[in-house]
């Protein structure tokens, strides 16, 4: 007797989300999933750039003025951001969000070089001052945001809650960032399709996963095309321009927050991306800008 699996869908962090777990009936599944969904919403509210009362908004509003005290969780996230900054040679920078002011992906228009110069001067995690009392952005106009790994962090927290509540089988899917609690109830792995970066409903590979996480960064999430060139939302914080070496990079790691960071850094590292993943011993599937596929270890479960 294998228990049935239920999918609980919801919208959070501007993405289609789903928790799949096994339970006796749909009502029990919903009850089991609710605290995890609540946790995802809590993270969304606490770290939203769009809510004036979020810690992120308060820190950004105080840029160039004063330091803002932050709680233990926020400090821990800053600590993680610091590791990513160092491990990526400065490419993964949580202060690079200011570039959004120049790149509007709803309209196909290139920013003026001087705009980018001004904004790039506001980027620099290295300048951010952190101590036990809080965090201070030294220049007015500087911004931090946890968009680079917040969704993955939420997926990990949600999975931990579900596991804590006794879930043994299933996964949390936050807009394609997937964190697995365990295999299917019969012990077989979940088979996860990797989206074709050029065909909306196409799949380029199917990967069996039971545990850990699978996340994908791609140039197809937000982009515009101009004169036959694609400009995607992943921006190099040093040049201010979109990266273009990879169409997508999928990474498998024990934690979603880690795999998400690996896939983003690989995108940002451009031609050095695979060396970075190889050096980190990560399993991946990458598609370059000519459609060539590179994979390592993804199906050897």
């Amino acid at each position, binding site marked *: 007797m294998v228990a049935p699996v239920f999918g609980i869908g919801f919208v959070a962090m501007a993405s289609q989300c789903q928790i799949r777990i096994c339970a006796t009936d749909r009502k029990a599944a919903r009850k089991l999933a609710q605290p995890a969904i609540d946790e995802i919403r809590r993270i969304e509210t606490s770290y939203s750039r769009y809510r004036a009362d979020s810690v992120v908004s308060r820190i950004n509003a105080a840029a160039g003025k004063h330091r803002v005290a932050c709680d233990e969780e926020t400090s821990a996230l800053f600590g993680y951001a610091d590791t990513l900054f160092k491990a990526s040679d400065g490419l993964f920078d949580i202060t690079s969000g200011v570039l959004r002011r120049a790149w509007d992906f709803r309209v196909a228009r290139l920013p003026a070089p001087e705009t980018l110069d001004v904004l790039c001067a506001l980027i620099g995690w290295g300048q951010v001052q952190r101590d036990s009392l809080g965090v201070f952005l030294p220049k007015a106009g500087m911004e931090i945001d946890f968009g680079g790994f917040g969704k993955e962090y939420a997926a990990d927290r949600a*999975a931990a809650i579900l596991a*804590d509540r006794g879930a*043994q089988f299933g996964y949390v899917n936050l807009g394609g960032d997937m964190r697995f609690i365990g295999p299917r109830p019969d012990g077989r792995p979940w088979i996860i399709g990797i989206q074709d970066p050029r065909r909306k409903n196409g799949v380029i590979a199917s990967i069996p996963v039971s*545990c850990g996480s699978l996340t994908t960064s791609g140039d197809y999430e937000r982009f515009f095309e101009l004169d036959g060139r694609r400009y995607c939302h992943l921006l190099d914080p040093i040049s201010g321009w979109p990266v273009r070496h990879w169409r997508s990079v999928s990474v498998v790691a*024990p934690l979603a927050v880690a795999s998400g960071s690996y896939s983003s850094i690989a995108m940002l590292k451009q031609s050095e991306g695979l060396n970075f993943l190889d050096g980190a011993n990560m399993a991946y599937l990458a598609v370059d800008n000519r459609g060539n596929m590179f994979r390592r270890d993804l199906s050897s479960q």
Partner: protein
Amino acid sequence: MSNSSCLRLDETSTTVVPVTPPGLGATILAAALILPGIAPVCAETAPERAAIGFKYLDYKDSQPDLDRVTARAPSINVVLPLGDAWSIEAGGMVQDVSGASPRYHTAVSGASKFSDVRKAGNLGVTRYFPSGTLTLGASSSRERDYESQSLSLQGSLSSDDRNTTWTWGIAGADDTINPSNRRVSNEKKKTSDVLLGVTQVLGTRDIGQLNVTYARGQGYFSDPYKALDNRPRARGQTAVLARWNHHFTSTEGTGRLSYRYYSDTNKIRAHTLSAEYVQPLPYGFTVMPLLRLHSQSAAYFYVNPVYDPVYGSPFPPGYTFGGNGYITQDQRQSAFGAHSYGAKLSKQVGRDLTLDIKVENYQQRGSWKLFGDGSPGLQPFYARIVQIGASYLW
């Protein structure tokens, strides 16, 4: 209790969990792991359980102007743990040898072609005790003209602090020889071996071992395919093996040194020195260069390739027809030195699969004998060994 089916509670074993050298990736993963409220919830599959290994050996040797023997041998080995206290090991191989029949004197030409198949198998059962092991093994080998059966018992006992392990072993083999030329039939050879050894942890990065083996055989030791071969019907062999492994912290590499002294009742004395260095490399690669030096003196009844002026080859000067004196012209019983060098490259593929390739170049020369002259008139001997392998754990 939470996620018990994910955290598989498997039986324990004394296998060792490999450690990967830290890379850049560890920093991100390690930093992620200390984030509050998140933790990996699924356990990895159980550690190494059973192991299956496969090797394919391709051997080819030659002497100047003569391609001698070609051998191809696939072999397989399975180790299967049974619960906490037992394991079974089984293996088998098929060796296909073909080529010119071994020249007894390298100066003699006109070797005839031959081809033979050898099939061998072995089975062992090990019982693990809190401070030791006991292994009972059996093996069997069969060729058209040669059969061998053997039984062995080996044990080990460790000190309370596990820094010293004593090993002992006894074995007996029963061989039957039925050469195709019917020179003899149903000849027997019975051998018994004993082993005594001690393995000692010398430091956190050093371990040493000293083994002594003694083998005593009775029966037919001669080579039935060599016209003049006649060897004593009893042989005693003593080998002393000293090994030392050292791990270099600076390179994460391991040096493995071994020396063996051998002596037997045929008055052969041999020194064998071998050195290997195991270097782990990025991306799961490991490279191991190896060097081996061997030197031996001749059996007292070995005769040099100098022939009687009247009867000519293969008869040594003053050869007495119908006599029963011991004689051999087998190059393996002569005095020579051997050099061998090579390298093994292995690659870890995924977590459970290892692929490897080993290439080795082996050479013998009379002039390479250490401590004195080698047998005169020996032709240089070359062998090229290529071995590919795979091993899988599940």
